[in-house]
C-alpha cells in the first residue's frame, strides 16, 4: 500500500487520534489485512506509538496482521446457528479445505473464519462467503458451496482428506 493512499485515508478523518479504529478498518477493507508498513506510517503521521496501534490491531477481531485469501469464508457460530449444528459446518469446512479457523489455504484462495453471530439467525446455520450469505447450511452442502469459489472450478482439493 502506497503511503499516499494511507495519507488520503488519514486526512479523510481529519487526522485525529481517536479515529485510529476507522483508519485501520479502511485499510483492512482495502488490503484485507494490516500491512506492517501501513501501521508504522500511521504511527508516524498521527504521533501514536506503534505499540498502541499494535494493541488495537490485535484486540479487535476485525483486523488481521496476516495477508488473507481471495475469498473469505465466515462460518457463523452464534447461538441460533450453534443449536442447529453450526459446529459441524465449520468442522466440514476444515476437513474440505485442510485449514482451521483463522488460517489461509497455501494457494491463498480461501481464508476460513468463524464469527460469534452474523445476525442472520433465522436462516441458521449461516455461512458468509465474500459477504454473500448462504442460509440453512448442512455439512453435505459444504463441498458444493466451496466449489462455487474455486479458481479452476475443478474438484481439486486442498484438504487432507481429499477423495481424489
Amino acid at each position: 500500500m502506497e503511503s499516499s493512499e494511507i495519507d488520503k485515508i488519514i486526512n479523510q478523518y481529519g487526522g485525529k487520534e481517536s479515529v485510529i479504529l476507522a483508519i485501520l478498518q479502511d485499510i483492512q477493507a482495502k488490503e484485507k489485512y494490516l500491512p506492517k508498513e501501513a501501521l508504522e506510517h500511521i504511527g508516524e503521521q498521527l504521533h501514536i506509538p506503534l505499540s498502541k496501534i499494535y494493541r488495537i490491531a490485535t484486540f479487535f477481531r476485525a483486523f488481521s496482521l496476516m495477508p488473507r485469501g481471495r475469498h473469505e469464508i465466515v462460518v457463523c457460530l452464534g447461538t441460533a446457528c450453534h443449536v442447529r449444528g453450526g459446529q459441524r459446518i465449520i468442522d466440514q469446512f476444515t476437513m474440505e479445505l485442510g485449514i482451521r479457523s483463522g488460517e489461509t489455504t497455501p494457494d491463498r484462495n480461501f481464508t476460513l473464519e468463524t464469527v460469534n453471530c452474523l445476525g442472520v439467525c433465522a436462516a441458521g446455520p449461516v455461512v458468509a462467503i465474500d459477504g454473500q450469505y448462504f442460509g440453512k447450511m448442512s455439512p453435505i452442502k459444504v463441498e458444493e458451496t466451496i466449489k462455487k469459489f474455486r479458481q479452476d472450478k475443478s474438484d481439486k482439493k486442498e484438504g487432507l482428506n481429499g477423495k481424489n
Partner: protein
Amino acid sequence: MGRISTPQELERFRDEILKGRDPNQPCITVCTGTGCHASGCHQVVDAFKKVLQNYSGGNGINFRVTGCHGFCERGPLVVIHPKKILYQRVKPEDASTIFEETLLKGKILEPLLYEHPTTGMKITHEEEVPFYQKQMRIIFGNNGNIDPAQIEDYLAVGGYRALCKALFSMTPEKIIREVKKANLRGRGGGGFPAGVKWETCKNAPDDIKYVICNADEGDPGAYMDRSLLEGNPHSVLEGMIIGAYAIGAHEGYVYVRNEYPLAVVNIGIAIEQAKELGLLGENILGSGFDFDIKISRGGGAFVCGESTALMASLEGNVGEPRAKHIHTVISGLWDHPSNLNNVETWANVPVIIDRGADWYTQIGTEGSKGTKIFSLVGKVNNTGLVEVPMGITLREIVYDIGGGIPGGKKFKAVQTGGPSGGCIPDSLIDLPVDFDRLTEVGSMMGSGGMIVMDESTCMVDLAKYFMNFLKDESCGKCTSCREGTKRMHEILTEIAEGRGTMDHLDLLEELGWVTAEASLCALGGTAPNPVLSTIRYFREEYQEHIINKRCPAKVCRALLQYRILSDVCTMCGRCAKVCPEKAITGKRKTKKEAGEPFQINTGKCIKCGMCFEACKFEAVEVQ
C-alpha cells in the same frame, strides 16, 4: 426539497408527499432484510425490476424495496399493497407471474401463499398469518412500509412529527418527565429506566454532553437492532435528536457493529438526508437547537457493547471497560457526561413523544411497559423477528407466534439474554415475559435473543458453547473473568467428553460465584449465568454425562457411537461416498449384484456425522 426551517414547512412537505401517493395504488414490496438476503431476495428484486421495465401499461404500479418484515423463515417475502397479499418463498421466476396474474388481473396465486400449519388453509393477507396476529408492531411495523433510503417514506408514515412536538411544544424537562412516566427501560439488556438516565445526564454540570446509540449488537442470536437500523434508520435518528434536545447534547455517535455493513450504509444515508432537510445539523427546523451525529464502526469485540468499553473504543483506545464509581452519564466519553442507549430504546422515543406516555403505559406489565422485539430463532417453526407486548407468555411466543417445534420434537427450553442470560425450562413456559420475571428465574431480558431448544439440544454442550464464547470475548482485564471463564470452559469440556466427576459441578458453582463477584463489568458479572441456570434446571443431564457417560440429546461427540442398521440399509452407498475417513465398507446394490449392507469401522470413525446426514433412509443410528 431544500432545507426546511419551520415545523409548518415540514407539514406542508409531508402533505405534498402524501398527495402524490394514492393509498389504493398497487405497490409491490420486497423484503431485503438479511434473512431474506440469505434466501436470495436480491435476485427477486432484479426480476421484478426487469418485469416492470418491460411494462408499458401506463397506470402506475409502485415498487418498493424494504427492510426486514420479520418473518424471515419464509423469505424471500413479497407483499402486494394495498390489500397486503403475502407471497412467501418467492423465486425470481415468480416475478412475472405475480405481476401478470395478481397485479394486472387481480388473481391470487395459491402456491405462493402461506399455509396454516395445522389447518392446511391457505392464508392470503399478511395480518391473518398467525405469526403476525399476536404481535404488536409499534416499533418494527413500519419496516414493511418504508424504503430505508427514502426519507419521504418515513415522513409519509408520520416520521419526525414527534421531533416537531418535542422541539416546539415541549421543554426538555417535560420530555424527560414524559419518558420517565412511560417507564421506558433500556432495551439493550440492563433495563435501566431511560428517563432517569437522561435526567442525570442533563443535570450533570458540563457544557459538553454526548448522546450515543449503542448498535454494537453482540449477543449471538439477536438481530433486531440490525433490522431496525437497516430497515427504519430514521426512527432511531429521531429518537436520538429528541434525546439530545432533552439532555442538552449537541453531538452524538452511532456505534455500529463491524459485521453489519448494510446498517452502516443505511444509517449514513439517513443522516445525510436528515441534514439536507434541516432535521439534523445546525438550527434544526428553525428551533435554534444544533445537533450532529457521527457514525463509528466497531471492531468486532463483544465487550464493546458495555458502555465504558464502547466509549473507550470511540476515543480510539482498546475496548476495555472501567469501574463505574462515576457513571458515564456524569463522566463518560472524553470525560464529559454521555448518555448511551440501545437502538431499540431510541426507536421507542418518537412513539412515546408522539402518542404520549398515557397511551404507552397501557401496554405491558406493571414494571415493564411497551413492547419488546425478540429474535425468535433456533428450533422453532416460524423463525424471525417478533414484536410483542411485555407480559406475553413464553408459550404464546413459542407456540402461537412461533408455530411450535419442527419435526414433532419436544420443546425443551428457551435461552434468553445471550451469553449473560440463562435457560428457561419447559416447566416455566407459562411465564409472562418482562424484565423482572426473566431475572427472577435466573435469566434476563438481554437485548432480545430468544433461542428455542428442543430435545436434541444438549444443555452441557450449550453451557460449554457459551463459556467458549465468553472466554474468547473476555477482554482479559479482570483475572476473575479471564481465568474463570477459561477454567469453567475446561471443566465443561471434561464433562462433555466423558471425564467429568460430580465434584466438577460444585467447582463450577464456586467458580461461577467468584467470576461474577470479582469482575468489573457485566460480561464477567453475568458470565456464569448459562452454566448456573443449566445446572439449576437440567442437573440430571449433567449427571447423565458424568455418571453414565451418555449424552441424552446425542450432541456431545465423544460420547456418541454411529452404527448402520443392516436391516434398514438399502445398500445405496451414499454414506460410504461421503465418509471422509473411508471408515464405511460394504457393497453397493446394483441390477447385477446383490450388494452387502454397509457398516462403520468404529476404530476409524471420527464421528463427523456425514453418513447420518447423507442417509435418506434413516439407516444410520446414533447412540
